[in-house]
């Protein structure tokens, strides 16, 4: 079937007849719309030459009749039927939800909503914190029955063992960077030897735990949120509740225990790897042999630094798991929510970890662990 398109009739002579020839379908809808727009109001649309019409073509003709007072001529039975169809379906529909107010008003409104949201999130987080404490208490009371060892051990593997590779590599490289940057700067004062102090103290006291927490938040916090969120969507969590299994006990507590127990272990491992990285750099660049490096490290790094690092680790682990599980449980509705909440879980976990780290820093300094 050849598409001959339409002829605009005798536009020049101004008889106002729009003759459609061939296919009046969606493929030529844009052209047809333009051509009808150019015609004067009260035009006559001649459909006698139409071979094939679809609803889009019918809509264009119907619209001209409705809005521009056009008359239709020569419509076959099929064509007239289709025109009637679209006429019946003419119910204007909004495409996107209504938005209230103008620019400034809306901005203020959005800001307000954002603040209320943040407040509610914090409130919800405290609630969830309480629920997990109750969950922990229930598990603690009857650990043989209520603690799901299988789940816990599986989480140990996922959160801890499987993170060894990436955290080890990252820590090693950070060690090299600290050693290199430290050496370059301290060399200006002829104090290269203090590179060892720098490596030892910054790693054990701060970076080992902090970088591990950031990595665990990215790896496991996001996974917790996505897993629980998806389970929420597929109604698995509702199913659990109705069977009488507490989702907090079955899902949240194993993840929290894994994060709390694995964080100090991973942090310690990260410290060691960073020190190895720094030590190798110091050996190669400054010519300080490993044995000397270790001896010097022992002299300049107080044991309290290690305690500070290791005390922070389980707290960070708890925060990461808490926020991850909390955001996962907030998922409602559709797949996009899972993405949004996973992002929120990671961002909030890292933010809270850094805030707490600052609090810890001030606290430990003021109790004299300098």
């Amino acid at each position, binding site marked *: 079937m050849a598409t001959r398109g339409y002829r605009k009739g005798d536009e020049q002579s101004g008889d106002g007849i729009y003759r459609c020839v061939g296919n009046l379908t969606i493929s030529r*809808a844009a052209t047809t*719309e333009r051509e009808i727009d150019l015609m004067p109001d009260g035009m006559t649309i001649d459909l006698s030459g139409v071979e094939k019409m*679809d609803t889009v073509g019918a809509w264009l003709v119907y619209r001209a009749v409705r809005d521009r007072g056009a008359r239709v001529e020569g419509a076959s039975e099929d064509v007239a039927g289709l025109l009637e*169809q679209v006429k019946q*379906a003419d*119910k*204007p*529909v909004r*495409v*996107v939800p209504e938005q209230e107010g103008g620019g400034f008003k809306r901005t203020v409104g959005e800001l307000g909503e954002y603040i209320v949201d943040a407040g509610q999130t914090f409130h919800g987080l405290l609630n969830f914190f309480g629920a997990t404490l109750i969950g922990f208490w229930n598990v603690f009371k009857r650990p043989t029955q209520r603690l799901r060892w299988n789940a816990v051990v599986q989480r140990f593997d996922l959160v801890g063992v499987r993170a060894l590779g990436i955290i080890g590599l990252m820590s090693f490289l950070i060690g090299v960077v600290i050693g290199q940057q430290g050496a370059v700067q301290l060399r200006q004062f002829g104090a290269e030897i203090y590179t060892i102090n720098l490596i030892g103290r910054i790693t054990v006291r701060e970076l080992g735990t902090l970088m591990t927490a950031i990595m665990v938040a990215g790896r496991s916090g996001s996974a917790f949120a996505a897993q629980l969120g998806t389970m929420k969507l597929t109604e698995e969590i509702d199913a659990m509740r109705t069977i009488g299994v507490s989702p907090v006990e079955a899902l949240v507590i194993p993840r929290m225990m894994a994060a709390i127990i694995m964080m100090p272990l991973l942090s310690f491992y990260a410290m060691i790897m960073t020190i190895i990285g720094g030590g190798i750099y110091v050996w190669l660049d400054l010519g300080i042999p490993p044995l000397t490096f270790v001896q010097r490290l022992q002299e300049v790094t107080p044991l309290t630094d290690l305690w500070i690092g290791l005390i922070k680790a389980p707290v960070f682990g708890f925060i990461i798991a808490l926020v991850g599980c909390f955001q996962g449980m907030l998922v409602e509705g559709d797949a996009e929510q899972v993405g949004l909440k996973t992002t929120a879980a990671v961002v909030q976990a890292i933010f809270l970890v850094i805030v707490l780290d600052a609090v810890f820093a001030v606290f430990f300094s003021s109790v004299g662990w300098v």
Partner: protein
Amino acid sequence: MSTSPTLPEGEKAVICIRGLRNAFGEEREQVIHEGLDLDVKRGEILGVVGGSGTGKSVLMRSIIGLQTPESGEVEVLGESMIGRDEDEAKNIRRRWGILFQNGALFSTLTVAENVEVPLREYFHLTPKLMDEIASYKIAMAGLPPDAGPKYPSELSGGMVKRAGLARALALDPELLFLDEPTAGLDPIAAQNFDELILSLRDKLDLTVFLITHDLDTLYAICDRVAVLADKKVVACGTIEQLLALDHPWIQEYFNGPRGRAAAAA
């Protein structure tokens, strides 16, 4: 008339499948279809039935190109579907609409925007015209106007199906694939949906390929029914013709208590 799944020589089919073979598993040992033949006539509503696991959905996926068969020929609207490149396939995809079992609406878009997706993909229309097209498609699918700006997560199950149907109809397809359209709907909603499909077929001159488990749907709207069993289409015909066969599955299906209830309705 026979109950052969293929049409007699000379009659033109909209969908024509010959010797289709689909198999899954690492060594392709799990054969779903073997030597499957089927023809779909222009303008008919063909119901496809079969027990769970007989590969109804796989058959549909093979026809629409989501699943590449091991061997066999699939022709849709006179074009072979096997071994097509993307551009050629696009020309055929324009001419069909598909309603997936769970709607498969894009969750980040509103219902109206969902309907506009195929329009945007294939044509350069003015935004006003696209909004209008979406509006009347939504009305044709039997949705109230306030459903347009809603997101899929805000819709009920029946409304999701209707919204999916509106999107399937967006390009005025010649061919409509429906995967269990009435599954999960209450009987009244299912009946309304049946009527909707029937009236759309008559109004818009559609050919409908319908997978269903719903005996009421089969009796109410299907012109012919294809029965999937023993890895192929064992029979295809009107329900009366199928009842005359003595295939055990067909007898059990149509003469079971549910089948008889649907027949009586």
